[in-house]
Structure formats: C-alpha cells, structure tokens
C-alpha cells in the first residue's frame, strides 16, 4: 500500500460531486485506512457519491456497487482518487 503524504492537492472522495464516480488510489491516514480497507474500500475499487446530508456532511458513497457507506468529509478526504 502506498501512503501519500506529500501530494496534498490530490483529488479525494471529499471532492466528488453528487453522482460523480472515482477510483480509489491510496489513503493518506494510517489508522483510518485500516478501517476503510476492512470495510471493502480497496485501491482500484470504484466509488460514487450518492448523497450529501443536510449541512454538507457526512456524505454517502456507493462502494463498488455493493453497498452504501456513510463517511464524514474528513474521513472521505483520506481516500485519494486516481
């Protein structure tokens, strides 16, 4: 797994617009990446932003078409996209 700390400007899940898709590339936080991996957010997996809660946070993403996962924006910002 490649941890990417230097390129902070990379596009992350928190940048997705509603309905937009992206492919997971890597994670920028160790602890959170462990939990995300266990929940099936793997590098190479396609995600799509499905819903944004009132006040813009948390968001719900669809993981690989299989299920819907709700994340806070700061958690979503940890997932870098290709």
């Amino acid at each position, binding site marked *: 797994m490649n941890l990417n700390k230097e390129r902070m400007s990379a596009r992350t899940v928190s940048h997705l617009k509603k309905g937009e898709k992206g492919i997971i590339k890597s994670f920028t936080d160790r602890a959170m990446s*462990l939990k995300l*991996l266990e929940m099936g957010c793997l590098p190479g997996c396609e995600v799509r932003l499905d819903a944004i*809660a009132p006040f*813009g946070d948390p968001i719900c993403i669809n993981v690989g078409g299989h*299920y819907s996962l*709700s994340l806070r924006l700061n958690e979503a910002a940890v997932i870098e996209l290709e």
Partner: protein
Amino acid sequence: MKQGNIKVALVGNPNAGKSTLFNALTGMRQKTGNFPGVTVEKKSGTFRIAAANGHDDAHVTLVDLPGTYSIYPKSKDETVVMDILANPQHPDFPDVVVIVADASNLQRNLLLFTEINDLGIPSVLALNMLDVAESMNLTVNAVQLAMQLNVPVVRINARTGEGMKGLKEAVKQVVERTEKPALQYFYQPKDNEIGLINEVKEIHHLDNDYVALQYVCQHDNFSFLEQPVRARLDALIEKYGFDENNFLANETIARYEKIKPIVSKAVKSEGATEQPYWTRKLDSILLHRVWGYVTFALVLLVVFQAIFAWASYPMDMIDAGTAAAIEWVKGALPAGVLNDLITDGIMAGIGGIIIFIPQIAILFALVAILEESGYMARVMVIMDKLMRRFGLNGRSVVPLISGVACAVPAIMTTRSISSRYERLLTILVTPLMSCSARLPIYAILIAVVVPESKVLGIFNVQGLVLFGLYLLGLLGALGSAWLLSLFIPRKEPSYFMLEMPSYKLPRWGHVGFTMYESVKSFVLEAGKVIMAISIILWVLASYGPGDSMNVAEQQVVTSMHTAPQEEIDAAVASARLESSYAGQFGRFIEPVIRPIGYDWKIGIALLASFAAREVFVGTMATIYSISGDSEDVLTVKQRLIQEKNPETGGLMFTPAVCYSLLIFYVFAMMCMSTIAVVYRETHGWKWPLIQLAYLSTLAYVSAFVVYQVLS
C-alpha cells in the same frame, strides 16, 4: 465424534442477520434491528439437532456475538469476539463457528471468514440475505464457493427460517468429522514475520501461525493474558521491529487479493451491480439536503401524535375500568384498614400504571419500526454533524432515541460507539431523554394543570406541553453534553464510517412481540415495585413512633371541638399522617424541597420514586387517600386537583408547583437501574456519582427557578 453438548458461535459482519438466525434456531427473541451494532454483548441459547435412527439428539449451545468487520476490534462491543475465539480455554470457545455472510456484499463479508479460517477453528459459511442479492441481480453459486473455500456453504434466509435444516446438518457433519482437514492459510506470513511467529508459538505452546500473530497484535485486548505475559510480548515486538499498522494493512490487502478471484467465479451479476431500487429511491429523499430534515420532522410529529392523541381512547377506557373495579372491591370487602390498603393503595397504584399501557405499546412499536426499517441508520447520518457540535457522534442518536423508551438498554447500545470519549458523554446524557417511566408523571400533572383546549384548531395544548417536555429533555441532553465536553479531555479521534443497510419491511410479528414484551415487563416490573412500596408506605403512614399519632389526634379534637364533624375528621386524618413515620420523614426533608414548592407529602412521593419513577403517581395516590376523608373513589388526578394547601387554604397543585415538579422530573436521575447500568458500563462509581450529582443539581436549580418565577 464429540458427543453431548456442541458449542457453536455465530460470527459475521454487523447487520448480516446473526441475531435473526439465532432467534430462528433457538426460538428465542434476541433484539434485532436493521442497522449495524444492534447486538453489543454475547447471548446464549440452545437447540437440538435430530439424530439419525437410534442415536441421541445432539444438544447445541449457540452463542450470538456482536458483529465485526474483522477480528481486530474497533469498539468495545467487538472485543468480546476475539476474547472468545483466541482462547480455547474460554467456556464459550466454539467447536464450530457459523459465519453468517451477507450474500449481497460477499467480497467484504468473506474477509472475516478468511481470518476465522486461519485461526484454525472449524467453520460453516451461512449465506444470508440472498433475497437482497437477488434484487441486486446477483446470483451466488454456493457449490462453487464451497469448493474454493474448502468449507461447507449453506444457503439460508434467517428471516423466513429457510435452510435451517441444511445448516444444522452441516454443523453436525463438521463436528462428526473424524479427522481435521489440513489447514490452508489464506494469509501467508511474510519472511520477516516468521521469526517472531515461531518464538511466540514456542513460548505460548501454540500450533497456529495466525493465532500467534494475534497474540502479537491484540494481547492488550485479551483478558486471559496476565500483565507480565503482555509485557513479554511487547518486548518481542520490540526485538523483531514488528510494525503493526503496516502488517495490518498488508494483511487485509493480501486477503482481498485471494478473495477477489473466488468471488468473481462464484458470484454472477447481470448488468451493473446496484443497490436495490427502493433503497436508492428512498435514500434520495430521506438523505436529501432539505427533504431529509423535513421527513425526519414529520416522523417525529407522527410519533408524538400517536403517543398523545391516538393513545387517549384506550387510556380513557382503562381509566374508567379501574375506577369501576376499585369501587366494586371496596364494596365487596368488609370496610377497614385492609380494604383501604387493597383499594386505595395497591389497586389505585396499579391502576395508575396500567393506564399507560397504550402509550408504552405505541412508543415501543414505533421505535421498533424505526429500527427494523433501516431508517435509524439514516437518522444517524443526518444528525451526525449536529451531534458533533455537542461532543457526541451520529451514532449517539440510537441511545438517545431508545432512551425515550428506557435508559437502561439505551445506555448499553453505546458500546458500538468506537470513541471512548463520545461513548462516555452519550452515557452521561442519555438519562436526560424522557423515558417511558416519566410519562405517567407528565400525563397526570399535565392533566391537572393544563386546560383541555386546542390552539389553531388542531393542536391539543396538553399534547404541546408534553412535546415541550420531551424537547426540553433533548435540549438538556445536548446542552449537558456540550458542557461536560468542556471538562472531559478528548483522547482519541472520532470516527463515523457507517454502513447503510438496505431498507427492509419491518416484520410485523416482531414489532407486535416487542410491544407485548415491553408492556409485560413494564407492568410486571412497575407492578412489583408499586406493590412493595405501597405496602411499605402504607405501614409507615399508618403507624407512628410511640403514641405520637394519638397525641396529634387529641390535640386536633380539643382545639377544634366547635367545628363541624366533617372538618374535624379531615384535620384528624391529616394530623395522624403527619405524625406517622412517613410523615415525620417527609417533615424532615421538607426544608430542602420547600424552595422548589413542595410540601412534606410530595416529599414522601419524591423519595419513594427514587426506586423507580413510575412509583411517584402510585405513592401520591396512597398518601392522599390516607390523608383524605372522602368516602368516594377518586382517581389520582381528582385527588390532586382537590388537594388543598393547608397554609394558604388555596389549591396545593398550583401551576407553579406542577411545572416545578414537571421540570424536576425532566432532569432528575430518579432511577436505581440507570445508576446501576452506568456503574457497570463505566466500571466504577466515579461516573454514576458525577452524573447523579450533576443531574440532581440541574433538576433542583431548574425547578427552583420555575417555581420562583411562576409563584
């Protein structure tokens, strides 16, 4: 083969249907719900597997466990799983693990399967939620899966009970196996891990690489390892320069690399995989930026309308029924002390409780529907940001909402909150949510003080006041969380990350049963306490130290000898009560409660209600029936309305007193069971005592302000 008792454990991802399966197999009624984190502790039950001709049936002890995404726990509830599975000496250590997998999301569910497999525990894979998979156009080939995973795979539907026979058969076959098949690890340790593994294996006499790795990574969670043993493991980690986080990430990724090809062979999909149609449609409204809150407000409105307006019809019927029953018993039994105890004390007390059956039933049914449908998970999402402002978590919504039913189970559900800090705050403020035991107190006082009129033609004023009290409780909870968060240091980061389950139609039988159970335990538990307290109170109120009661009576008679007989009787009854044990006790605490508007009689009820809040109404009934001289049967409400303040000669239950009492009960932590559960969940007296002191102060000060402003 192993004879006699077989031990089986249910393990799987959160919300995969373990508890539903547990219920289907054992016939028990474990709590289920359509959101992750319903089960927070292990629960056991039993079932039998019928034997082929001539042999004895096999008895199985089944353990239902909290759901986990992996064997590495992330919150308090999840630790119990590995505490059992890593320790063969544990009394619940299973002969077979049944891994319940959500077939609509197989890849992720198999991660846990591969981990359990590597621990070397015999297992059976139960494919559940196949109907959901089907609605996503997925077909799962169980035979293919069984071949590739090298484990029995059974198709089940835990909700309808399909496949139970096959599952039992598979469990039996695994138990009866004469030789254990060679273990095929899904995760092969890296070269740099092997030295460490071998040393741990040798020290702890283990024969499994992966168990050894668990000793390395998780020994701090294992209650069966002593402190020096843990320290030695820490030293080994140091010696080999083992990087735990790196290992965990690599392990998970390596496992998925193995799982992916297996799943793509066994699961066929027609077209693109998508969540079920209705789940997508509903989420587009219920999680919408604007409509999300509008619908949530509507849901709350319906709940209150149901509890207050719809429940009033059956409640009126019960009220009339108990009054008639008391009247009848009073006439049927010979007059005397025993008659009074049974009718005015016990029957009035019980009547004051059963009248709330409709409201309790509706409340529990609605909470069950929220939980079963999957909406609860959406509420957590739309409330998370708000909750965070107050130091809580979106997940705190579950305890707060179920706290409206009862704080005790609500506080236990906090175990699924991963941050200890947020969990503690949630525990501390959950008792502020108005629980069902407060409903009788609210209802009676509202009936006394608020007129039965409508505003704007539709809103019942009494209903609005009730709504206001619930709202006050909620605001009190949020405000207190914020206040307490200023004093309690936050140590670890906070997570949300919540899986959204697909919507499911509530099972009406299950909702009905939840209703029945809650009513039953409410009536039985409250009934027992009320019965005991009524009798004790009756004795304490009927007898006084030495001759004090007769002395008091004599004084009244001599001082009032010119007054009409009726007035003398009333004054005598009151004087006797005042000089009884209960009266003297009430007198003793009166100075403390006087500033918030209560006299010694209310003081007695207040103290009695420390056992349980619902006792308040019954106690008031008992006290006022003893001190009253009226021969008519009066409901508690009528007694309260008629009660005179001996000092002013006016009404005792003025708006100031009623509102002061209402506010007091909104905030006060008057419940032994809640104190006990907080003690258990926080492992000590520190937090329950802080909580008790804080809530009592809050209640007293608020009641004081309300009383002084209104009077």
